[in-house]
């Protein structure tokens, strides 16, 4: 996973590059929490463009990070979510608290 902090807009972007399951969430969680507490962003964006798989461990991960961001007065959103991941997300209702940003139209 890579992250990028935009100082002007105070937005923290997480580019997740691994499959998200119980095994990988531990490491991702530690890194995300470190970056969130370090930058105290007003918004966190989870970018799924390089995520090929996610199970319910991802839901726990997202809700946990959302709680942390909310604690510091920020919000969260997701982008570039593929169909299969959207299916898992929608089932859990997590999209109600972390909305999926629509993809930018090309052209």
């Amino acid at each position, binding site marked *: 996973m890579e992250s990028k902090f935009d100082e002007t807009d105070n937005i923290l972007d997480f580019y997740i590059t691994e499959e998200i399951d119980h095994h990988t969430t531990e490491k991702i969680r530690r890194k995300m929490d470190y970056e969130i507490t370090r930058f105290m962003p007003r918004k966190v964006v989870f970018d799924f463009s390089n995520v090929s798989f996610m199970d319910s461990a991802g839901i726990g991960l997202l809700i946990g990070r959302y709680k942390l961001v909310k604690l510091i007065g920020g919000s969260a959103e997701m982008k570039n979510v593929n169909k*299969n991941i959207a*299916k898992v997300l929608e*089932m859990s209702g997590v999209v109600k608290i972390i909305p999926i940003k629509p993809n930018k139209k090309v052209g």
Partner: protein
Amino acid sequence: MELNFLSKSNNEAFARITVAAFAAQLDPTIEEIADIKTAVSEAVTNCIIHGYENEEGMVKVKATLMQNIIEIEISDNGIGIEDVELARKPLYTTKGNLERSGMGFTIMESFMDEVEIHSVVGIGTKVIMRKKIKKEESEEIDEKENALIN
């Protein structure tokens, strides 16, 4: 097809990828493969976190093809589930402190056609899941055949 592996979390990816490769014989759609991978991942994770509570044990995955149906049996010799009906409920989890969402069985049930849970406390848990591949297409064929007959 049968797999036996240690209840280590890095085997979750191994299990779902292997079952997906086995299921590929039925020529499933990308979505069907994703459904199977997700359901297998949930069941195997349950064995590791709940069945063995992160202690060492063996997880067994058995997959069988019957025409266009895949049956996947995932079992452990762990602690078992006291109340299976409660465990099936969406959002119910005994491991909330581990940021578990309580969606495991709900996902298995919605991504597969049938899910059976057999569990005996102190003996272990076995989950049997079935999914029909190319459901829509075969239903379409059925409809066409029926139309021809009529």
